[in-house]
């Protein structure tokens, strides 16, 4: 379910069925890294929308956590941890963090959730049909990760 006026009431009504939150992590860079930052945002946004579509009855797509790319990842982790604990307090059993920023891998073990790091696929210069194919390939790899998490 999305963070929208259509879906949130549904979430509130059916929350016993919704035990998973997906939180995209997006680095923001205003300097030289701005292209990269834009590409990552686009890619992760598409991916998280696709996962939401597959599993919408059991998961809530949370608005992205954005942070300045040059910030210390440990600091970001502390902040994300706060989000996670808050979501857990509200009965979200599974937290899925999805990002293209590899620095999160350094703090993976300290995160109380499943970190899904996806290497950036630059969607620019791809025609629509190819783009779709690439995305559905990626999604196919991602689905089992989520379903395994549910088996815990």
């Amino acid at each position, binding site marked *: 379910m999305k963070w929208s006026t259509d879906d949130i009431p*549904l979430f509130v009504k*059916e929350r016993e*069925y*919704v035990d998973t939150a997906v939180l995209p992590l997006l680095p923001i860079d205003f300097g030289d890294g701005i292209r990269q930052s834009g590409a990552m945002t686009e890619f992760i946004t598409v991916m998280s929308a696709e996962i939401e*579509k*597959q*599993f*919408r*009855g*059991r998961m809530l797509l949370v608005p992205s956590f954005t942070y300045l790319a040059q910030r210390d990842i440990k600091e970001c982790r502390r902040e994300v941890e706060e989000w996670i604990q808050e979501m857990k307090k509200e009965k979200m059993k599974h937290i899925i963090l999805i990002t293209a920023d590899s620095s999160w891998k350094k703090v993976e073990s300290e995160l109380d959730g499943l970190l899904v790091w996806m290497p950036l696929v630059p969607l620019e210069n791809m025609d629509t049909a190819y783009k*779709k194919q690439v995305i559905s390939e990626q999604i196919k790899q991602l*689905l089992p990760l989520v*379903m395994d998490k*549910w088996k815990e």
Partner: protein
Amino acid sequence: MSDEQNHNVSRRQFLTYTLTGVGGFMAAGIILPMARFAIDPVLQAESEGDMKAVTDVSELTEEPQRFDFSYDQEDAWVTSETTETAYIYQSGDEVVALSSTCTHLGCTVSWATNEEYPDEFFCPCHGGRYEKDGTNIEGTPPTEPLHKYEVEVRDGTVYVGKAEPQV
């Protein structure tokens, strides 16, 4: 003292009037566009009734297969390309196209992906199950069958329209 109070009251009254006035304006501003939104979906529903070509009949088997098709959807201020997934199969002379959207809470179901239930549609979210014709299996969360698409076969091509409830 009482003078002062009078003064205050009249100021408050003034404020009340003004605010109501502004509020009134705002309400008018809000109602108008709402009326427009209320009309829009009706018009939209009509244009969505279009049939979309999905596959060749020769591709179909008795086994439900997955087909994706997309169209543009206008949702208030964004037009986005929406992709839907249908499971289509041949049942005697009839072509059946079922929606892949679980009728419980909307996850995507798939055919024969759960080893324990090889001849059923399965929903990974809360274990919803459906028979081949879309009938929901009792004891699992869904309370109605998978929706069924309007189907048309013209010159060997399968077209699907809107998915409608089976009950």
